[in-house]
């Protein structure tokens, strides 16, 4: 059980902790990848996230869900990396996902842009959604979060997660249809 693995990790049991890593590393990687936009950085940060999590696991309250805690560490470390690089004068290709103050349309990783048309439509539509809706859809579909995890990450009551997803999915479907129609019109005009 997860709670037991956390308690054992707190006591310094590295085997228990590495089981937690096995369970969560793909989701942590995806979180970092969406901010950093490249595999290498995201893989490095994922490692850093777990080492940091291990060194401060005693401060984690095991009555809460584990992923929201990892999610926060991942976001902080990834954004710090971008900030440090910017200060060092390196060119950062694109800014963080869902940071409208910096970049209203979240640039997607190049690797993800070169997808088949259907995926492309959904990605375009996602980029046009209001941040709040986009965030909850990404948490659910890409980061594989349960409603409880979503409610902790977004600090909203668990009872509102379902209806928020309903509205976000509705808006997404509408937006996909709109962008598809726009594409059709363009094709017909040619």
């Amino acid at each position, binding site marked *: 059980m997860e709670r037991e693995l956390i308690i054992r990790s707190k006591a310094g049991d590295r085997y228990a902790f590495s089981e937690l890593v096995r369970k969560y590393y793909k989701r942590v990687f995806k979180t970092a990848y969406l901010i950093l936009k490249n595999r290498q950085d995201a*893989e490095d940060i994922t490692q850093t996230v777990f080492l940091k999590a291990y060194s401060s696991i005693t401060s984690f309250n095991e009555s809460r869900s584990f992923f929201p805690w990892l999610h926060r560490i991942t976001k902080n470390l990834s954004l710090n990396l971008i900030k440090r690089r910017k200060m060092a004068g390196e060119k950062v290709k694109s800014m963080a996902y869902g940071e409208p103050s910096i970049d209203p349309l979240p640039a997607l990783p190049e690797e993800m842009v070169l997808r088949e048309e259907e995926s492309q439509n959904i990605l375009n539509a996602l980029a046009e959604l209001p941040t709040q809706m986009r965030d909850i859809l990404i948490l659910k579909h890409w980061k594989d979060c*349960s409603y409880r995890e979503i409610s902790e990450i977004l600090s909203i009551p668990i009872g509102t997660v379902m209806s928020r*997803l309903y509205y976000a999915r509705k808006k*997404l479907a509408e937006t996909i249809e709109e962008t598809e129609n726009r594409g059709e019109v363009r094709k017909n005009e040619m």
Partner: protein
Amino acid sequence: MKCEEVRIKINGLIDNELAESEIDALLDHLSTCKSCRAYYKELLRMNREMLRAAPPDPADNWYIDFRKRFFRKTGGFLGRLFFIGSYLVLLIYSLFQLFKAPNEDLAIKLIIGGIFAGFLLLLVVSIADRIKESKNDRYRGVIR
């Protein structure tokens, strides 16, 4: 149940977040309402597409590499502990032998004792500094 209420719950259904009792009521409605059935199908289709558009997974060997590094770190720590510990024991032992030796000059004993005391002091200060630093360090435990 009104259709909109039902549709909100259909979201819970495909996300696996409904209780048994809720599912039964939902299925009852679905068996009679064509448009909610269409909504359900559409939602499943969108789910699949979202999944297909998802970001990639990390490299296959990421986890294996992580484990290797993670466990080697413990080995490194124990190694250093043994190395430095034994070195200190050796120093103290030889110092003790030196002071015990009856025919050695007192001046030599004091000089070597002084060097050793200075070394020990520096060691203690530098360890104390590192502990203080790592307490303030937000990236504690992070490999740089």
